Every structure is written in structure tokens, then in C-alpha cells.
């Protein structure tokens, strides 16, 4: 219990510092209030045109499609992550050392940082866009089930952190880790479902995506919100897909811990 209280105190302190640190860049966050809705308007007209004369495409109706794009944007504001970038900067400048000298697991520090950073995102990106989407564009913003949606978004938050953190750890091994990072981010932007619902991809690719971690970052929470999950012709009930997502998060966390440990071995071995 005492242990938990201590951990919470660290989360609070680090999150607060990160919140203050990024508050100076509020206007940067607020760019999203413009960009998010503009992209949505484009999507609105694209899909309205595409759906003319059709009620359903790949099992999705127009209204669902619009909700999908709105909700992936909003979820993106909550789960957005830059742990990889941060970690790489620390390694490259040698500042990682100051974390090795403090009694804290750096991934836990990164988690606390992300919480602070995303609370800022909640105020300056999520809530304003929520109002714009809900009241101006009038898209349906009530989830099929509040409980499962919240759990799924929290899991997506963690998933994104663990994936990015693992990618960031490559900086201990590679001099030019930015390349790995950019290729990964590119793959993630295509295969997480942010571009288009994954059911639009060719069947073979969909089957492959079932086994890749990308869908858990964006597609899964969005479909949990809509209340119905299908990929590669497989429909999975909501509680089960959230369960799968939880398993995926745990597995990713474990992988990230394994990579972290071997990275630490390397760090303490060569002082990279």
C-alpha cells in the first residue's frame, strides 16, 4: 500500500512538471483545434460523395464512418505519444545518465510524463474538438458502452507508450535510430486505422493486421466506441476484443521490459 502511495506521488509530481513544462507551448496544442476539424470536413465530403447511392461499404454505414473519423481523431489526442523521440534525445545527448542516477525506472517516468502531457492535450485539444464535433458537425459522440470504451482508450494509451518506448530504446543500439523511428511511425499511421478503417484493406492484409500490434492503438478503441468489431471477416464481441487488447498491452509491456533490460546492460556496459 505504502509502495502504491509512493508511486502515485511520483506520477503526480512528474505529471505536474510535464504539464507546466508544456503549458508554455499551449498555442502549439491549439493548432489541433483548427487542423482536426478541417481534416474532418474533408473526410465528411469525401465519404458523403463516396456513399452516394450506397448504404453500406465493407459493412459500415456513412454515419458510422463519420463517427469513426471523428472518434479516431479524438482518441488520438488522448493517446498521442512521443516517448520514442524523448528517449532518443536523452540517449543522444547523454542525459539518460541523470535518470540512471535516480531511483526510478525510466519507463515509469515516461508514463508519468505522458499523463501530464496528455492532461494538457485533454484541455487544449480533446475538449475543444469534442465540442466542435458534437455541436457543430453533429456527429454521434455517445459510445455504445461507456465502460468498455474507457477501458479500451486507457489500454490504447498504454499500448502506444509501450510500443513507442520500445522503438525509442533502439537509440541505445543504433547511431541513426531516427530512421527506425520514422519508418515505424509511418507503418503505424497506415496500419493503426487512422487513415481509413482497416476493413477497407485487402483481405490478406487484414489477416496480417489481426496479428500486428498497430490496430490496438486506434482501430480497436474506435470500434469499441462504435460497438462492433470486425477485421478480416472475423467478428469479435466487445468484451473479448478488449480482453485481447489487454493481453496485447501486457505482452508489449513485457517485450519492452526485455528490451529495456538488455538496453540497460548495454548502457552500463559501454556507457552509450
Amino acid at each position, binding site marked *: 500500500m505504502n509502495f502504491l502511495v509512493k508511486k502515485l506521488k511520483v506520477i503526480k509530481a512528474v505529471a505536474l512538471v510535464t504539464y507546466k513544462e508544456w503549458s508554455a507551448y499551449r498555442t502549439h496544442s491549439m493548432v489541433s483545434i483548427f*487542423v482536426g476539424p478541417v481534416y474532418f470536413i*474533408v473526410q465528411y465530403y469525401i465519404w458523403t460523395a463516396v456513399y452516394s447511392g450506397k448504404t453500406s461499404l465493407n459493412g459500415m454505414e456513412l454515419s458510422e464512418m463519420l463517427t469513426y473519423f471523428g472518434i479516431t481523431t479524438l482518441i488520438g489526442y488522448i493517446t498521442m505519444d512521443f516517448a520514442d523521440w524523448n528517449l532518443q534525445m536523452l540517449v543522444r545527448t547523454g542525459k539518460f545518465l541523470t535518470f540512471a542516477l535516480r531511483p526510478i525506472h525510466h519507463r515509469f517516468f515516461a508514463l508519468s510524463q505522458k499523463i501530464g502531457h496528455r492532461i494538457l492535450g485533454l484541455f487544449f485539444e480533446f475538449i475543444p474538438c469534442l465540442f466542435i464535433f458534437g455541436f457543430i458537425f453533429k456527429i454521434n459522440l455517445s459510445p455504445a458502452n461507456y465502460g468498455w470504451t474507457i477501458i479500451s482508450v486507457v489500454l490504447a494509451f498504454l499500448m502506444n507508450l509501450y510500443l513507442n518506448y520500445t522503438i525509442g530504446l533502439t537509440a541505445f543500439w543504433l547511431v541513426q535510430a531516427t530512421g527506425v523511428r520514422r519508418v515505424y511511425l509511418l507503418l503505424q499511421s497506415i496500419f493503426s486505422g487512422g*487513415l481509413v478503417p482497416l476493413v477497407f484493406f485487402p483481405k490478406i492484409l487484414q489477416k496480417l493486421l489481426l496479428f500486428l500490434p498497430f490496430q490496438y492503438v486506434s482501430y480497436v478503441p474506435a470500434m469499441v466506441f462504435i460497438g462492433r468489431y470486425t477485421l478480416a471477416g472475423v467478428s469479435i464481441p466487445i468484451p473479448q476484443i478488449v480482453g485481447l487488447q489487454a493481453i496485447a498491452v501486457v505482452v508489449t509491456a513485457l517485450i519492452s521490459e526485455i528490451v529495456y533490460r538488455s538496453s540497460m546492460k548495454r548502457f552500463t556496459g559501454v556507457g552509450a
Partner: protein
Amino acid sequence: MLKKYIEIYRECIKISISTAMTYRFNFILDNFIMLVSNTLFPLVTLLIYGSGAEFPNWSLYEVLLIQAVFTMSTGVANIFFSGVLWATMRHIIEGSLEIALIKPVNCLFFLIASTVEFSSLSLFLGGGVMFAIALSHIGPVSILMVLQFLVLFMSGVCVMMGISLIMAATSFKWVGNSRLPEIFDSIKYFGRYPQNIFHKTISGFTSFIIPVAMIGYFPAAALLGEANGTAFIAILPCFVFTMGGIFLFRHMIRLYEGVGG
């Protein structure tokens, strides 16, 4: 005078190419990522048509033609004008704009010339390949259509030059906002699709106010034989945009000199 400027520009291009060659791996990777991330929207179009849907009255290759033109246009603009924003931003943050100001050449010219960057070359070439494929599925193209296309294409590049300069000018006041380009990228998004899918107000906006339709849609429409009066009237705001960009940037430099001196 002109000869001197051409000479400077040639030297800058040489430097840019040799820099790119020094960091070959990065250069290739930059190009690859730039190309793939900019061909995501044609991918969506392919996925839409692959799912048996379509933009009403537009064939797949017609839409791809718009998007190929958009990609080429972005490629050209990225190579020649995108560096100026980052250079200006960096100079302002570090307070080192004086370095550019003390050069015995026009400051705006110098900033543009010294930031030529070929990491978007693949974008232009990739767009070109897409363009060729799309064109081969489209009916015969007359010389007049090609001429119209070239004029409109150049106007589109001018719009992006104007946008780059306006952003660079804005960075004088809104220091170090690295997300500035996202704002304009989101508006450019409209130029990637057939304009008739949008509401009249929007297509009016994208033709005459911020003429992003000129980046992809209008030049492609010329090749499809559908260049109408609107397209040619829209050249005017393109021109205004470019001149506005140049004027604004120069104005900001004058202000900067006034304050800095």
C-alpha cells in the same frame, strides 16, 4: 545582376546535392518516407475504388490524375520553397538572421537559394510515375490541353511558394511554432479531390480565397479537357498570393531590421 543571382543559385544547388550525397543513407530514407507518406491519400482512393465505391462521375484514373499532379506540385514546392520556413524559424529562435541580412544579396533570395533541398525529389518522381500511369488510362490529350496544364501547374507551384513565404513571415511573430505548416497542410488537403464533391462555399474558398484547388485539381482538369473559366480566373488569386507572400516577408524583414537595429 541577374547573372550573379543565377550563379549564386547554381552554387547553392551544388552544395545541396553534395550535402545530400554525404548523408546518402539519410537522403534515401528521407526520400522514401516523404514519398510513402505523401502517397497515402492515393492509397485511400485506391481502397475506396477497390471496395466497389467511387466519387460520382469520376473514374479511378481521373481521381488519381488529380492526386498525381498534387504530389508532383508538392514535390517541386518542397524542393525549392519549403526550406525557407525552417531556416527563418531557426534564425529567429537563435537570433542569427543577421547572417543572412549582411550578405550583399537580396535576403529573401538568399534564404530561398540556400535552403534548396532535394529530399523531396522522390516525391516529384513518384508523382511523375503515378501521373504517367493515370494519363495512359485517359483519352487523348491535345497540345492546347498540355499548355493549359503547364500554366495552371505553375500557378499551383506559385500558390505554395506564397504559402511558404506567408508561413515564414508569420514565424517572425509566432516564434518557433513548429506546427505552423500543419495548418496549411490541412487546407491544402482540399486540393487533392474533385472539387464538385465539396459544398459550393468550400469550392469557392479553395478556388479564389486560398487557391489550393490549383495545386492538384485545376491542372488535372485541364488535361481532362475540363478547364473552364473558373480555373483561369483562379490564376489571379494565385498571383496575388505569391506577391502577397513576397511582400509580407519583406515587410517582416524591414520590421525586424527596425527593431534589431
